[in-house]
């Protein structure tokens, strides 16, 4: 599920991207995953496993992102210009690819955050209605 603006109106579009049946359950909704990755990288640059750990940490273990979803998302967002990547060394001296958020990525994070909050509010009030 991605959220995006068109003529100021919030639209909901469902993109069914999953390719393998058994991955379907573990697969995060793509838009949510993008948001979480951007959020995880907003404070510091991280390598793949770092992103995965950070997401698990900031969501109190609710989301456990598997590499099968994580790497495609990272590469896709890099191609979109939201992330940049460079090779560096990990805390225990292993060569790893580190990702960081670009300016465009920060703008995207803001937009998506705003959208998410509006949706979350809307759905919350919908659920409270009797």
């Amino acid at each position: 599920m991605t959220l995006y603006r068109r003529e100021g109106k919030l639209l909901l579009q469902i993109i069914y991207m999953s390719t393998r049946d058994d991955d379907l359950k573990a697969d995060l909704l793509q838009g949510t995953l993008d948001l979480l990755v951007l959020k995880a990288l907003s404070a510091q640059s991280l390598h793949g496993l770092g992103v995965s750990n950070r997401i698990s940490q900031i969501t109190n273990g609710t989301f456990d992102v598997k590499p099968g979803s994580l790497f495609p998302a990272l590469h896709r967002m890099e191609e979109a210009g939201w992330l940049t990547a460079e090779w560096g060394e990990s805390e225990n001296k292993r060569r790893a690819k580190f990702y960081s958020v670009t300016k465009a990525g920060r703008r995207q994070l803001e937009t998506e955050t705003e959208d998410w909050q509006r949706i979350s509010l809307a759905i919350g009030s919908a659920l409270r209605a009797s």
Partner: protein
Amino acid sequence: MKTLFSRAGSLLRNLTRKHQMERELTEEVGSYVELLTEKKMKEGMNEREARRAALVEVGGVEQVKEEVRAGRTGVAIETFFQDLRYGMRSLLKKPGFTLTAVIVLALGIGANTAIFSVINGVLLRSLSYANPDRIVMLWERSLAGRSEQNVVSPANFLDWQKQSASFEQMAAVAEQRVNLTGGTGEPEEIKAQFVSQTFFPALGVQPLVGRSFLPEEDTVGNDLVIILSHELWRARFGSDPEIVGKQATISGRQRTIVGVMPPGFHFLDNQVRAWMPLALDPAIDYREKTGRYLRGVARLKPGVTVQQAQGELTGIARQLEQSFPNKNTGWGINVVPMHEQVVGEIRPVLIVLLAAVAFVLLIACANVANLLLSRAAARQKELALRAALGASRGRLIRQMLTESILLALVGGGFGVLLAYWGTQVLVAFGPDYIPRLDEITIDPRVLGFTFGISLLTGIFFGLIPALQSSRPDLNDALKESSRGSTGGRGRTFRNVFVVAEVSLALVLLIGAGLMIRSFMELQAVETGFNPENVLTMRAQLPRKKYSEPHQVLDFFKQAQDRIAALPGVQAVGAISYLPLTGLASRDSFRVVGQPAAAPGQEPGVEVRVITPTYFQAMGIPLLKGRLLNERDAKESRVLLINETMAKRHFAGVDPVGKQMEVFWDGSGPDEIVGVVGDIREGALNKEPEPAIYWAHPRVPYAGMALIVRTSGDAARFGAAVQKEIRALDPDQPVADVRTMQQVIAKSIARPRFNMLLLTIFAGVALVLASVGLYGVMNYSATQRTHEVGIRMALGATRADIMRLVVGNGMTLTLIGIAIGVLASWALTRVMANLLFGITATDLPTFIGVSAVLAAVAFIANYIPARKATRVNPVIALRYE
């Protein structure tokens, strides 16, 4: 905006620096596994446990990498080229399969497009007239059923025109051969149509250059104008753009050229080169003075149906019967829609051919399906392996699709070449009877249709294996296909396809067999004359120059004498209409002394006018009495009859010496002086009709066909004979110089063409069916290598194995043949009226053709069976 630039950069990088990208991806995922392992070790696992747990959590390094690749910008382009490369490689690796599939597709697409283009051009494409569905032909109809489409009496035509209200225009057409001088080249005999002024408006066609006829030009005295066909304008007048207003001499009379028709325009006969006004004279009593010789064409008023027009004209015909009982009793009017007129006669042929097209297409599709299914079964393991290595379901399907489409495109490419070439051959071989054959080109819609059908078959049956192999339980697939089993899901399918192919091919072969047999019967017909070493030609003397009968008689007398004097010429004669050219004069008659028939019920007779030497020149025997001779002048009132006439109307009596009256000019009866042998006159497949022969002086026709019997190859005498005629009259053209054998060949060009087309189809079907059978047998023999090995190890002899494998294939073949015979029995009826001398269920054809098919099928079975018996049992047992 930024995103767009970023993506463009990524695309460039993805496409150009692929290897580096791949290396980095491997390293990145690898480092993830390493880092995760270390993390797990820190949590207290030993190294092996930690690595294993990390790999399980990652869920397959290759799969992850594939997921990333699938998300890259430009992945579609890259995958496409990858698939294309892989597809080509795998097709080239199996040249046998690829070649077979390409041949099958090319034949299926090519042959069908070529023949369907011809059919489409003739049957389905609309006429080149404006609103052709409003145009109808008007014929007289003999209510006694002798003639459904009889030419029209000018008197009747004028009455129809006056009395009917259903038509916008009604026009009459008379066709005649005329002599053309003027422009470039020798004097030439051309076909021309004399038409009412309303002719061009009725068809809704305007001349390309100049104008059509004015109403006043359709009257006697003002009618010396002419409109040229595009072809005549080009060939004879060099496409002169200033042609309008110039003169052409037609049969000795100067006519002013007023227009040129567009290319391809013609009415019923595409040999017609010019149109002139008919100029019927209202002062002439046509009813008494002339016979029926016009063809009517009319354009319906908007909103008037063919049935309504027919109803109105039937009423008019009844009134005419009452007003003119002696001429019109028993005559009605027949309204025939133009389209029906043009294609009606050849419709049975076209329907048979259309069915043949459909059959061949079905066989080709069944074949492609079979080939792909066999191949798929053989590739099951490969596909399972690729799925296990991370290829997603969509990816496998795309790969299969790319291959099928690649195959279809290559096959289709050759098919287009074949279609192009085949159409040209068909047009070249087509007899000129086929209407509008010259307008036929490959129809892109036809090509698209056949191509589309083949492509869809390819895609559908190419997809099945991909859908099957990309199921989640790869383990089963991998295991099953490694077992070398004899079964398999596709097998029943394949067997059904083989049976269907064989039976469809048999129907086509029987159809073709019937046509061939029928054609042989036709060629074996006794013509009643000796066509060997005979040269024929026509001369039509212009009435202006040869206005007196004695001039005409002198011309042909002198021409005969001159030609007869040539060395090597044995006999020379002349006749009004050459046999087997479809032209004849007819009239009704009575035998003096026999009771008279009711008006409209008089028996008919063919009237032929000859010079006395005609019978020697043609080699027709005299059966009784004497022939005509030079002394039989106009006054001598004698005639000859043919054998059929003698049998039918003088049963049990000697006709020689009897009197009979042909109502030709109302001049009374003639004496029968002799009986001559029957000949096939109208067509080889038509029984001889009663006929009489008059001497030329009795009816001095200005147009006669000359018959020259020579001592050797008749064709060599053409130039010498023409020279003699030119010496007699330098302005006189000679037309249709050909041997009698050529005349006969042309008269059966139509059944020959039908036979040719159907034989091509049947040949294609036979090839396709045997290829299909061979493919399936070969595949099943290969699949059963393991089984054969076991049997041989257990003591089966080669003969046993042979019997097993061939028996299997022949069972399918025989089932197919049985179905095919039953289907043919039901279907060949539609071609009954295309056949001559045999019935549509001709037993020898059915048996013979089935035997041929069985023999070919046996060979297609035998080759793979022999291969199977050559197998070394030890290797066969290990075979996977």
